[in-house]
């Protein structure tokens, strides 16, 4: 998934290395959409290879794909960027399976990709809306740790939420 850069641009390229050794060559302008990378570039300069030991190649690739798309959308057309981004974001999260979604969220959070974190948390939140307690537990693989009776008590107090 390494990005093949076009040689005509004068944009600086950064080399990002994921935890599993996969490397990505990315335009600086794209990579610095990620707060964490931006900080590293500012602190250490951009000549070096940037190692990201907490993100594996699959998810780093996806995060960068998102950054690239947004960067392109924002330069290519001056009108309707928001529309394009919105449409594209929708596509981007639509088919993610839960596991990928969670890992991607972690990667985006680690890389401080604020907008992407927003997008993904919103997606996860949408999986909670309107669901029953049991379904929410299933979604998050959570086991109830209430003592017998405790859950009943809470349900009773909030009975109007369960009608």
């Amino acid at each position, binding site marked *: 998934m390494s990005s093949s850069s076009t040689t005509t641009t004068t944009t600086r390229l950064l080399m990002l290395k994921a935890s599993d050794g996969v490397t990505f060559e990315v335009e600086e302008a794209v990579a610095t959409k990620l707060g964490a990378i931006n900080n590293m570039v500012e602190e250490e300069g951009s000549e070096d290879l940037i190692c990201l030991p907490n993100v594996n190649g699959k998810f780093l690739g996806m995060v960068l794909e998102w950054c690239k798309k947004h960067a392109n959308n924002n330069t290519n057309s001056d009108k309707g960027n928001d529309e394009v981004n919105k449409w594209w974001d929708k596509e981007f999260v639509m088919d993610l399976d839960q596991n990928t979604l969670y890992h991607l969220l972690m990667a985006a959070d680690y890389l401080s990709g604020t907008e992407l974190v927003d997008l993904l948390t919103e997606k996860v939140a949408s999986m909670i*809306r309107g669901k029953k307690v049991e379904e929410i537990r299933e979604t998050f693989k959570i086991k109830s740790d209430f003592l017998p009776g405790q859950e009943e008590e809470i349900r009773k107090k909030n009975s109007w939420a369960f009608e």
Partner: protein
Amino acid sequence: MASKSMGSSLHTGVTFIPFDIIEEILLRVEAYSILRCKCVCKSWHSLIRDQAFARRHLNRQRTSTLFLSDDVLSARRRSKIFDRDVASPNYHLPKETKDSQLAVEGYDNGIKGEQPTSYRVGFGLDPISKVFKVVKLCAMSGYGEDKHSNINIANYDIEKSLSDPADCSLSFGDNGDVLFCNFDYSGVAWYDPKNNSGNKLELLFGDEFFDHVVPNFAESFLRIK
């Protein structure tokens, strides 16, 4: 990610998701589902009943002081208030505060803008509109917030000051939930039968629309059944 009273050590099932991200997710869930989320597990339960969480939840939303909101106040009522604004030197429009919410205290004559001294936030059901809301209840200066359980409230009528306290009721669970009725008026006065005293409160409502949370991404995910 301001106050993290919960810490990140609390577990969730999907263990690699830190708790502060869980919090971010739950902040985007509307009041109706939030109440169900309370039953999921202990750590979610304590997060949701935490005042700091409820405040953040409220602040995420388009909150409006009732005095200025088109949605909540009838035009008739608003115009009365604004008439008074012009007429009465005692009335000041709420100023922007840090969290842009400011309660307005009702007086027998005129209204005076004042900073709430304390407030509680909770998730509740408005049985009239059948809408689940986040409610911020401000106690005005000099009135403690300790008397918040099962108190009777009366509509605070600008014309008549305190009306019949048996009108409606407002109750708080120990957990900070608010179950309330009858909020036609923005200013409410409540009557505490134990102390045989009346006090005035201001209710601020957050509405339930989340499209501002992720701008331009509204239609796809929003709305509950």
